[in-house]
């Protein structure tokens, strides 16, 4: 009852404070070189973000992420929509893509390294693949789910395929596109970080692993927090976008 009156951000904040409290206490009890408390984590984060090399890494990750994310969204959306229009070919192709998507992609990363070498190209491609498959699947399903009634309406008006795509299919799949964009952002980011952790010379994943070999866990936690915050902003923005589109475009709003 009292929760109804408190603003929306209070409960999550209370939970966060509780978790930090637990962290502080357990870190104090553990008293370990490799289990720092929040204070140490924040201190090391502060020194990290004044370090130009670290900032360079952040920039690198952001740049590669942006490119591979944009590519994943665009490629997944367009190919997904095109395939989704054909029920027959969807049925023939989807089992393979679903199978591919259920493989833990990280074990495929060595193949990327073998053929694309170390560097932006291989980790970017890996991030791209991590994001593009789910996006593709979401869009195929969404396109297949365009209301048959709307297709019939279009047919009765003698609409061309292109006109159908523009006037019916695209607006119908926009809500799915938006939630796909939100979902794939996280997946692309994780893919990129894993790739950087496995083999990289720069980027946040590389920084994480470098700290691991130096046993600097406080920096790791600090950086995990930072990544969380950095990932949070676009995620929230995408969430906002999604709920707007849903409100506007969905039948049963």
């Amino acid at each position: 009852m009292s929760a109804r009156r408190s603003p929306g951000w209070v409960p999550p904040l209370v939970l966060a404070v509780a978790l930090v409290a637990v962290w502080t206490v357990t870190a104090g009890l553990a008293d370990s070189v490799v289990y720092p408390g929040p204070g140490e984590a924040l201190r090391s984060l502060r020194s990290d973000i004044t370090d130009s090399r670290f900032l360079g890494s952040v920039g690198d990750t952001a740049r590669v992420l942006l490119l591979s994310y944009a590519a994943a969204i665009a490629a997944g959306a367009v190919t997904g929509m095109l395939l989704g229009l054909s029920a027959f070919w969807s049925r023939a192709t989807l089992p393979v893509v679903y199978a591919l998507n259920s493989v833990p992609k990280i074990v495929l990363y060595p193949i990327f390294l073998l053929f694309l070498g170390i560097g932006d190209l291989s980790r970017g491609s890996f991030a791209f693949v991590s994001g593009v498959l789910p996006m593709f699947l979401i869009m195929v399903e969404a396109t297949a789910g365009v209301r048959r009634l709307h297709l019939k309406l279009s047919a009765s008006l003698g609409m061309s395929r292109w006109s159908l795509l523009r006037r019916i299919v695209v607006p119908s799949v926009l809500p799915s596109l938006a939630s796909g964009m939100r979902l794939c952002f996280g997946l692309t980011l994780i893919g990129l970080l894993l790739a950087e952790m496995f083999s990289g010379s720069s980027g946040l994943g590389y920084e994480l692993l470098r700290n691991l070999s130096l046993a600097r866990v406080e920096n790791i936690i600090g950086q995990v927090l930072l990544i969380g915050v950095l990932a949070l902003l676009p995620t929230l923005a995408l969430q906002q976008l999604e709920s707007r589109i849903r409100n506007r475009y969905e039948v049963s709003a």
Partner: protein
Amino acid sequence: MNTQTQAQRGTASTTTTPIVRVEGVEQHFGPVHALGPVDLTIGRGEFVSVVGPSGCGKSTLLEIIGALQDPARGRVEVDGAPLTGPRRRTAIVFQESATLPWRTVVDNVAFALEVRGVGRKERRDRARELVEIVGLGGFENHYPAQLSGGMRQRVAMARAMSMDPDLILADEPFGALDEQTRMLMAEELLRVVETIGCGVLFITHSIQEAVLLSDRVLVMGRRPGTFIDEVPVDLPRPRAHAVLAEPAATAAQERIWAQIRTEAEVAMRSER
């Protein structure tokens, strides 16, 4: 042409070419024999309803006439010529959800014109007019989700009117509405059709509605649907709800009900 059809209203034409002529049409979906063979003629300006149990093939027939399905067998002529594809002057009114949820009322009404390449200003002006005509003035910029079911159906009706149709195919357009709204909408449709003076093929589950609206009611039997009865409705036009109390109307209703009651009982048990 309009004046001609106006003059013929209420009397099924036999001298001029009918607007719809269906001969020996059948449909199969794989092993399922879904429809027919059926013959059907709709005169210019004639209002024909089809009632029948669920799954008997009513929608199938309508879609074949609307060029949304190819029949497995038989001939379909509209306006004297064999069908070659969706016709410009055939308007289909689907159930309420055939409004596009991402378009405002005006843009939904203007949709058919837009597809046909009518310029932006012209189609919007025309759409606004039609929105007024169907009584949605003031809701031009609302989205379908902000409207009641009955209001959405008015949008669909206005869109159909924008196509200047000589044939309207309506597939249970009021199926999702509650009875009171439904009756109001039926009266509305009567007014519109009487204004345009076009032929109508109207599919419904409601016997009352069929009787209220039609010149003729065709009763379809269980799958594969064929017509098992044809009930003429001799009531004066223009009509309103009150005509249903007249003996001719109650008699027609009872006759239709008797025809399809057994069919409906069996259908209720077998259909899923």
